[in-house]
């Protein structure tokens, strides 16, 4: 008993711990907060010998100007469509494949899984030139499906679902279902899917965030007429905004929605990342 007490004592947070944790939180949040400040002040105000640390109402006018320079609303809508489709596709296809790799036995299983995991080392750069030409040939260049199709599955997703299904669904349960004459389809839909719904949610959130924030391939295949929000940011930064406040207001406008969703689902996302770390 005294042992566990001493263990607890070493893990109790003292004032120094709190101080450091608060400091880390400030460093994490300050650039985002200061974006709000920068979005409300002109270049001259920012260059003053005492720069401002509080936002004001001129931010709304600046957002309005930013919306005229960059297609941010279109970008947001496109990003929701793109990230939504990618999330649905990834979760569905990776759960199917993850189930097969975890619970079904077939020739070449370990080799295929190994190859799949190994491909996580391949850089995005290695595929973009043929993809670019392929999309041009199919007439999909500049179209949202040119972003969705190549990102529809990830090797990580298969590996993640495989690890979870291996642990979350007992073999005995599947075997007894087979004994009762259930088909593999039935095993999948009535036993596996209900059991791994939490993992599907986690994979869904992580995939959505990754797809939402993806930059390299969307930048190559899309243009400023039909951008995702990340590509729209680029036209904000490289465009002709006369004031940094307008660039910041636009960046803020395009970032706030995902940050709000993130804050609401924060606990689940944190749990998902940590769970994925242990399982993976």
């Amino acid at each position, binding site marked *: 008993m005294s042992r566990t007490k001493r*263990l607890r004592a070493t*893990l*109790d*947070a003292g004032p120094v*711990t*709190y101080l*450091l*944790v608060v400091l*880390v*939180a400030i*460093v*994490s949040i300050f*650039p*985002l907060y*200061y974006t709000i400040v920068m979005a409300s002040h002109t270049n001259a105000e920012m*260059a003053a010998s005492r*720069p401002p640390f509080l936002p004001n109402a001129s931010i709304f006018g600046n957002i309005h100007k930013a919306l005229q320079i960059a297609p941010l609303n279109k970008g947001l809508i496109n990003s929701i469509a793109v990230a939504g489709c990618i999330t649905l596709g990834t979760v569905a*296809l*990776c759960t*199917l*494949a993850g189930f*097969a790799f975890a619970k*079904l*036995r*077939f020739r070449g*299983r*370990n080799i*295929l899984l*190994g190859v799949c995991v190994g491909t*996580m*080392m*391949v850089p995005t*750069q*290695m*595929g973009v030139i043929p993809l670019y*030409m*392929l999309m*041009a040939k199919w007439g999909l260049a500049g179209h949202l499906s040119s972003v969705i*199709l190549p990102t529809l599955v990830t090797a990580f997703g298969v590996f993640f679902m495989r690890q979870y299904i291996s642990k979350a669904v007992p*073999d005995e349960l599947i075997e007894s279902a*087979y004994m009762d004459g259930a088909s*593999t389809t039935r095993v*999948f839909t009535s036993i596996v899917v209900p059991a791994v719904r939490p993992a599907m949610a986690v994979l869904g959130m992580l995939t959505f*965030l990754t797809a939402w924030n993806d*930059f390299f391939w969307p930048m190559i295949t899309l243009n400023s007429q039909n951008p995702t929000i*990340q590509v729209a*940011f680029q036209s904000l*930064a*490289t465009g002709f905004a006369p004031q940094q406040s307008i*660039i910041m207001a636009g960046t803020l406008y395009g970032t706030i929605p*995902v*940050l709000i969703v993130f*804050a609401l689902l*924060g606990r689940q996302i*944190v749990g998902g*990342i*940590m*769970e994925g*770390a*242990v399982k993976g």
Partner: protein
Amino acid sequence: MTTITAEPAAGEEISRRRPRRPRAARSRGSRIAYVYILPFFVVFAAFSVYPWLDTAWVSLHEVRLSTYDQHTWVGLANYRNLLSNHYFWNAFRNTVTLGIISAVPQLCVALGIAHLLNHKLRGRTFFRVAILMPYATSLAAATVIFLELFSPKTGIIDWALQTLHLPRVDWQGSKWPAQFAIASIVTWRWTGYNALIFLAGLQAVDQELYAAASVDGAGRWAKFRHVTLPGLRPTIIFAIIVSTIGSAQLFGEPLLYHGGLPDGGTQNQYQTLGLLMYQQGWTNDRLGLASATAWSMFVIILLAVVVNLLIARRRERRAAR
């Protein structure tokens, strides 16, 4: 590394199940398994494997964007070109230095933060979500924001330096300050994420071991050295490999840091391999050369991962002795 952990588990399961599984069910399951992996592999083959192989093929040719179907065979000339190419080696060095100055501090700080968060904290969900906010911020937004923070006229960082009577720094034109600024964007975005990965690893370390170490009279540092680090080793190796793969492909941050130009600064002072590949392909219209760069990046990642694993294995063996 992930393969290594995956294989034994799969093998175990097979040997445990083989004698008990009824024949009919097994054969039924084995044939239908291909149906389950088919959709994944169709998409994967069409949009991942095929482009990778085609990139290899293109890298042996002279190809232009406008006339993509006309390939002129040049053999290994593109690769030879890279080996003697000043821009390639410059980009290689920049990728390595940017990778080191972003990944090393990031992982060390993340380890420290994970240790802090492993305490019993009031409001711990708030802190965990807070340190993950940068991860939710896209690299495009983060780079645009940091560009403003580092701005020579209106940036708060210059103001802070002046207030502290420190010399002003040219965050754009000078090589190391610019690389430091770009690395700070990467570090800001990924430290919290890695801290949570480490925290998960920490919480999986057997608490009894700490108690046992306390009984043996181990201090804080000894516990960290002999209980925490060995317990976290797989997680640390995993994080190192993931950040190695990520930093080898660094692209968006240095691109937007120079206003969307792929040259990586006026003197290419922060041009990475990812930027160089894009510049060769889309600015200079030399797809063969760009493809050769892309494949070189893969080889570099492969070598880096193998070196990481070898070091890790040797350490493990030494620790076991």
